[in-house]
């Protein structure tokens, strides 16, 4: 596996992975270290940071640091689920459209264009007003928003790979399309897909955070980074930490994921080349 982890050796890969691991660890395990109950007021509202309350308190007097340690799990889990579901739908559509070279392609792609025409947030708001607020609605909604873009990228990459000799050799062997796609096409479109997946994941986080911020996703008093920003935004002049701390966590995660995706993409395709072979190619 050393070959596959080569991306860690680059600066951006190492930094990116460190940041992601840190933020995810805080989101998952942070709650066991929380000094206070996140949902109970502990002192006066909007208290500044002190030795007891490291990041001060929010507008109801709850400990910001404790809420920060609790608030990551929901947004990261929802974003991961939504992005994963989006990839399942989007990659299937993109691979079929790109590989088929038949009438399915334009039919699928025009449907995708229609989907892309909806403003994402508006689509989600309509969906929530119809189906009600709920975690499932949020995940499915974000997945449906993500899928068209994913399918476009996957299709373009697939079109390019499908004319290569190794794909044609498999077709000439009479292999089933599914086998050709999984064995020959899929591994060779992973570079663009991986880079894109980092961006998509952060975009999912932002959409979910926006919906939570608008009060249509998770409901108070749940501790969630996006909700924390939304709840405390009016008081930013008095107690900035209640807004800045969760915002910084979301920003950190976004940066970390993008650095990692970038490093992986750059190492793909070179990762198997030993030094001697690489110089012989010149």
């Amino acid at each position, binding site marked *: 596996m050393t070959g596959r982890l080569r991306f860690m050796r680059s600066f951006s890969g190492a930094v990116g992975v460190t940041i992601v691991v840190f933020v995810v660890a805080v989101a998952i395990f942070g709650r066991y270290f929380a000094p206070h109950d996140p949902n109970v007021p502990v002192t006066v509202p909007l208290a500044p940071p002190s030795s007891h309350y490291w990041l001060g308190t929010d507008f109801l007097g709850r400990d910001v640091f404790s809420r920060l340690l609790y608030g990551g799990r929901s947004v990261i889990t929802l974003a991961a689920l939504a992005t994963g579901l989006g990839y399942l739908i989007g990659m299937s559509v993109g691979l079929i459209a790109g590989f088929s070279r038949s009438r399915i392609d334009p039919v699928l792609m025009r449907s995708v264009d229609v989907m892309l025409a909806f403003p994402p947030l508006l689509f989600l708001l309509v969906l929530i007003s119809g189906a009600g607020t709920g975690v499932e609605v949020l995940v499915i909604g974000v997945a449906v928003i993500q899928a068209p873009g994913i399918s476009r990228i996957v299709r373009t990459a697939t079109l390019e790979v499908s004319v*290569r*000799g*190794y794909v*044609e*050799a*498999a*077709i*000439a*062997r*009479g*292999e*089933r399309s599914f086998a050709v796609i999984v*064995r*020959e096409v899929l*591994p*060779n479109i992973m570079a663009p897909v991986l880079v894109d997946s980092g961006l998509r994941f952060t975009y999912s986080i932002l959409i979910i955070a926006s919906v939570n911020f608008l009060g249509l996703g998770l409901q108070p008093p749940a501790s969630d980074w996006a909700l924390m920003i939304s709840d405390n935004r009016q008081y930013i002049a008095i107690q900035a930490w209640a807004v800045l701390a969760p915002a910084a966590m979301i920003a950190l995660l976004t940066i970390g994921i993008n650095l990692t995706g970038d490093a992986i993409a750059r190492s793909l*395709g070179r990762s*198997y*080349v*030993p*030094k*001697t*072979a690489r*110089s*012989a*190619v*010149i």
Partner: protein
Amino acid sequence: MSDAPAPVVQVEGLSLGLTTGDPVVEDVSFTVGAGQILGLVGESGSGKTTTALALLGYTRRGVELRGGSVSISGQPILGQGISNLRNLRGKVVSYVPQDPGGALNPSLRVGDAVMDVLRAHRAGAASLESVKASLERVELGADPRLPRRYPHQLSGGQQQRVTIAMACVCDPPVAVLDEPTTGLDVITQDRILAELARLRDDDGMAMVYVSHDLAVVAKMADRIVVMYAGRVVESGPADEVIERPRHPYTRALVSAIPDFRRPRALRGIPGVSVGVGEWPSGCAFVPRCRYAIDRCSEALPELSAATPDHSVRCIRWQELASEGAEPGDGRAAATAVEAEDEALLQVDHLEVEYRNGRRRNTVVHDVSFAIESGRCVALVGESGSGKTTIGRCLAGLHPPSAGRIVFDGSELAAFARNRPLAARRRIQIVFQNPFESLNPRHKVSSSIERPLRVLRGLSQGEARTEVGELLDRAKLPRRVGDRFPIELSGGERQRVAIARALAAKPDLLICDEVTSALDVSVQAAVLELLSELQRDLRLSMLFITHNLGVVACVADTVLVMDRGSLRESGTVAQVLNAPADEYTRRLLSAAPCLPDGAYS
């Protein structure tokens, strides 16, 4: 020589290396006089392009200058600042790149591309008239709308002419040409070479012509410098180097050139060219040299003068000179198996079209032929003649629009997936581009295993043993199985692709331009392998190519195609010696060959 014109290019002790330490080019010296062409010959990785780029004061990323000097028209090139260099490039020394499709900016009209060069150096003379004049010099003046076209609207030959026009528009005394005709058809190549010769004769331009193909260089060059592993191994006047090659490497290169006038068994150079960073302390050619003795690997041989004008870097050249030329033995296929009468494959009135929306474009028109069991049929034509399309139809990758393909008595379905397993197994195809024909994410062994499992139903264990045998057959070391394609050279990859095709135990092997992306020396080795396999396994082959020299080396019968139709067919001897069709004659006259002296 006293009558030699004063040199315009003077390269002295040029050395370049990777910034990480390994040398790439070591101690290269040569001169070129006005109106002369110097051929710089070598395999991929020999440092010939690195040397050529240094003439423009350019080093690729990761490469740095180590020493030596380059001067052109008396002006030193190396050590100049970037703004001085920019001023010299295009005006004093210009460059014609290998791949014009990649070198021309796709979003710039070709007239503007030529104009840019003028603006950079002769702002006063930059006018549409001078652009047209420069395009006329390369025979692109006929179409007045041509300067308004984009590169993708031109053919490969026209694109290359535009790059030559760009290189000549400011009348530089020197042009560096990096494989300017590789990837072009023989007829187009012939015309480009004629134009270059005219530029040399009319304008007295000196040229450095970089190529791996000695036959082309022999046609153009006055002097030849042969490079191997970053060093000059032989240099001298062109006719002398070709006719009396002194270095074993040059000899091997000469005997690797296929020539339709002299069909003979080609001898490839065994092994792989030494990579950067792997240079041995002695002569770098030792591992591949037939004449190597222990003393060869002890120390690097010096360049010694065979004649005052002809130098060679080999300690045994004097002994070898008496041994005579590399034996160019009779044609291997002369011993070819007797044809069996019944046809293995019969193609009847094949028509193929490509559809683009409503538009239909017929690329193959009423083509009929047969391949008898155990025979090799060559399908020859320029690019766009439809020859590759026919191969794809036979492999079940493209549906014919009319006509029948009958294989061993039964008609074949249009698409491979509708054909019975036996037919899919018995017809195999090897593709043109070795860099795209293997899945970069699978190990070599896994690529070869796949047909064993899918087409022959072997178990994993059985398949694994057979992969080893197939690698032996393709003359690859067994450890290659654990490699990924990116670790292999072009020739090695093509051997893997052949092994993958053989894995199915085919009766008919379709070879689609399998050697056109390879160096001449590697091509010879691959052709050698294919002839041997054909003989040993009694394979029938459809050999698709644009190179008539190759045809003479492998095929029994020839089909000549032009714009989708069959122009001529017959045995190799008939078609190549007494061509009946005008088009065939043109193809033959354009094919580059070595001068007769090379065979004495």
